[in-house]
């Protein structure tokens, strides 16, 4: 606690006299945070979401949860499947037990709390999922997102937190936009460095 007091006292001391104004380029005061205006066609959220998701290199399927799961199993040949607590109950998949189990799986199946159309983003909630690694450790991730949970843009979440997350922030909230990628080697984009190399999103009604 004494570390904290000394630390903050130092800041207060330094801030006691405000920094000199930059006269050639004065600061223009902003009273409020302006919302981000996207130059995107967001009239049909599902279509916009699908376009944005495809741009990230992920796949979108529409249908019922069991149909989507079948398609993904066929496309990927996955044998060992783990699921998080928020995967649709109708799939009958037991919730995974921890990272060791997730690490050994070929496919992780999860739900998603929201989808964000402007950027093709999934919003994953660790409390609802009962954990963090079902969507992260297996090489393929399938997220089942109800189409009525699509939001226009991230502002619809961040500017309305009370409404969108009535119980507050979970231990971890993650935005996922596409498969894991890196361009660290000569700027050549490679997928699947560390996180999943394939991302499938089932837009379910």
């Amino acid at each position, binding site marked *: 606690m004494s570390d904290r007091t000394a630390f903050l006292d130092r800041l207060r001391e330094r801030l006691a006299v405000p920094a000199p104004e930059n006269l050639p380029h004065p600061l223009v005061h902003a009273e409020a945070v302006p919302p981000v205006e*996207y*130059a995107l066609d967001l009239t049909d959220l599902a279509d916009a979401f699908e376009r944005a998701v495809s741009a990230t290199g992920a796949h979108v399927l529409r249908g019922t949860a069991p149909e989507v799961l079948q398609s993904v199993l066929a496309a990927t040949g996955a044998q060992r499947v783990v699921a998080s607590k928020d995967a649709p109950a109708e799939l009958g998949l037991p919730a995974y037990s921890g990272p060791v189990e997730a690490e050994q799986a070929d496919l992780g199946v999860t739900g998603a709390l929201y989808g964000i159309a402007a950027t093709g983003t999934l919003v994953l909630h660790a409390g609802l999922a*009962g954990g963090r690694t079902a969507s992260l*450790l297996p090489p393929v991730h399938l997220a089942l997102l109800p189409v009525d949970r699509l939001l226009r843009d991230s502002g619809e979440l961040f500017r309305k937190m009370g409404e969108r997350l009535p119980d507050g*922030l979970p*231990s971890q909230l*993650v935005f996922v936009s596409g498969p894991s990628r*890196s361009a660290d080697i000569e700027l050549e984009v490679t997928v699947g460095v560390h996180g999943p190399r394939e991302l499938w999103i089932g837009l379910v009604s």
Partner: protein
Amino acid sequence: MKNTASTLRERSAVAVVDEQLQGALENATDRFANQKAVGTAAVANWEELRTAARSLRAQVLARLPEVLEELADKIEARGGHVHWAADADDARNYVLEVAKRHDAKLVVKSKSMASEEIHLNDALAASGIEAVETDLGEWIIQLAKETPSHIILPAIHKNRRQIAEVLSQVADGDLSDVPAELCAFAREQLRSKFMQADMGISGVNFGVAETGSIAIVTNEGNGRLVTSVPPVHVAVMGMERVLQTWEQFDLMLALLPRAATGQQITTYVNMVSGPRRAGEVDGPDEFHLVILDNGRSDILGTEFQEILHCIRCGACLNVCPVYRQIGGHAYGWVYSGPVGAVLTPLLHAAENELQNASTLCGACWQACPVGIPLQDLLLGLRRRKAESTGGVEKLGWQAWSTAWSKPALYDATTRLGGVSAKIVPESWTPVEWREGRTIPRPEAGSFRRWFEHE
């Protein structure tokens, strides 16, 4: 090639003749600068956001003690721990203490420039703890025993063959230089580290005070793994990297990825609020946030305070004519490019020439998503240095200034200058003035004198 020469001028001289570095820098900075234009086109009110961001960062800094207190209180309310580190030593000791308490032997790290600033990896190694960087570029340079040469692409100065050589050090044979294969190797190697690590150390892109949260953005997923698998998570955050509200974060999230790489959003945005909770089968049992001062408070209240607005996007590097020629290593420290040229002399007093690594073109200011007037700060640093320099140079400037403030003296000295130019040999002029050009010879008199007599 390692650039270990001691002055900015010497390091730059090494960098500009390194053809591979030159090619890599041109390629990367062009690509990012072009992609940024595409990325920002998706935002209709980019300039409005930049202007607002500058003001909002200033508003947060003006209330920094209250904002940090709110962040800390809310983290502690969730059972997290907050350590207030006055300097690098303090921060290192705390992290070591946490590691020792958990008998940690292996630590995985996701990108944290603050942790490089305080030489955390060296301190861990000295205590017998293996600390593995997991960001692919950072892992490559860690194995190569080098420092990062770009904020976003730490290994940009290496080509695929060099990277293959570096990674082959930890492989069972020589690796091919195909990026996809090198990445597959990295995935496999680092995956086992993630699974076995005793502790994860991350940086923080933004702390968000209103809910006691930290946000980490990555494309690879290592930021999620480091904060999800090991039983302990320690986050290191420069004290100025905070926001008050999620509304402000939404604004920063619109700016940061687009300015950095032109992406609409990074693959992952990881928002952590304390350790795991009941009913969760994974996630760390302990969460620690280290809030780092290490000289930042000295910048508060000065004309340089705005450098603390920086969100570490790297956009200024990509447009800087100087950075594009000399690369990150020439700056001699963790932060390079225009932001490094301002921040390094302020935090690391030994490096006090970096403000000269600039043409004052202002491209950095134009590129900066939060509108930091970097060229004003560079000028301020130069002025500060000139004011503190004494000796012959100062007398010389004063003499010149006096001479040219009086018309009669101006007239006399220019005539004298013209005459003496004919007798003073060129080799008496400073060598830097002569490199690559012929010194023009002054005329015998002033233009006005010639005009009056013609």
